[in-house]
């Protein structure tokens, strides 16, 4: 049982926070996936290898 009645404003704020949280979580997952995709690419070289290659 809550101590005070929840206002519509609180629901809206919760919805916004939840939405933002999910977007940020999705962004983190995307950046992780991008990193894996780039690092495992055949053309990928770490900077020291790039310099040696020149």
């Amino acid at each position, binding site marked *: 049982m809550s101590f005070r009645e929840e206002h519509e*404003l609180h629901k*809206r*704020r919760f*919805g*916004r926070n939840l939405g933002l949280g999910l977007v940020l979580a999705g962004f983190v997952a995307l950046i992780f*996936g*991008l990193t894996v*995709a*780039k690092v495992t690419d055949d053309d990928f070289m770490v900077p020291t290898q790039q310099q040696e290659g020149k």
Partner: protein
Amino acid sequence: MSDASVNTASQAPAAQTGDAGFGDFFALLKPRVMTLVVFTALVGLLAAPVAVHPVVGLAAILFIAVGGGAAGALNMWWEADIDAVMKRTAKRPIPAGKLSRDEAFGFGMTLAVFSVVMLWLATNALAAGILAFTIFFYVVIYTIGLKRWTPQNIVIGGAAGAFPPMIGWAAATGTVSIESVLMFALIFMWTPPHFWALALFMRGDYDTAGVPMLTVTHGRKSTRLHILVYTVLLAIMATGAAFTGIGGPVYLGVALVFNALFLRDAVAIWRRDEDQAEADNYRVEKRAFRLSLWYLFAHFTAILAEAALSGFGLGGWA
């Protein structure tokens, strides 16, 4: 954020700023327009003759969509006064009092910079550069510059909506080529008849807002002629594209059917006068508008089909 800041949109009611819901911010991104951006950019990306890692492709489409959404938010920031007096747009977040103009500006600018930088990091500088130019073109050239002073606003402004497949293609290949220019041209030529058909049956809106649409400045008879001329040019261009790198037998079949239908409606619109249109509540104009949406979807699906078939040695004319 303040709970009691004042909405500066001249026509809009006081906004309950600082407490807009997630959906209000999402609505700023013009999700319906975004679907067109996502679809055409995806076709540009997949039709390119270069394999793209699925995660990179997903990221590219997402950032292009965010960039398009940012342009939409900045468009709503600038046009809050027009949106408030037009029936079609009066329920958008700013005129509805759910968001302030300042919030929309901050949101749009942040997403614009974010999307361009992220697209650059995920793909290449050319794709990011075209995305940045697209946002600039839509917001500064079209929204702030052209829309309120020339009836050619739709023609020139249509370029902004035509860039996404070019960005998708550039994200995959790192280049601009004739194929991506053709996809750009297809949307560019399609935009005027699409919007002028809308302007014919949303007649009161543009008059009230004082936007110099062709229907307001040159009259409705002239607009009907313009729709016919642009549809003829579009049909020539769209059918001719069947014999280029993005075309093939499947595309040709789709182009012949949909251009014939669109031409039929354009001729019918041209032959009608206002009394006839009002008598049947703009039935033909509304049909042409709906058809134009399917027209673009069908052409880009056909381009995608040709690209997919080429993977099996079947696409194009070879």
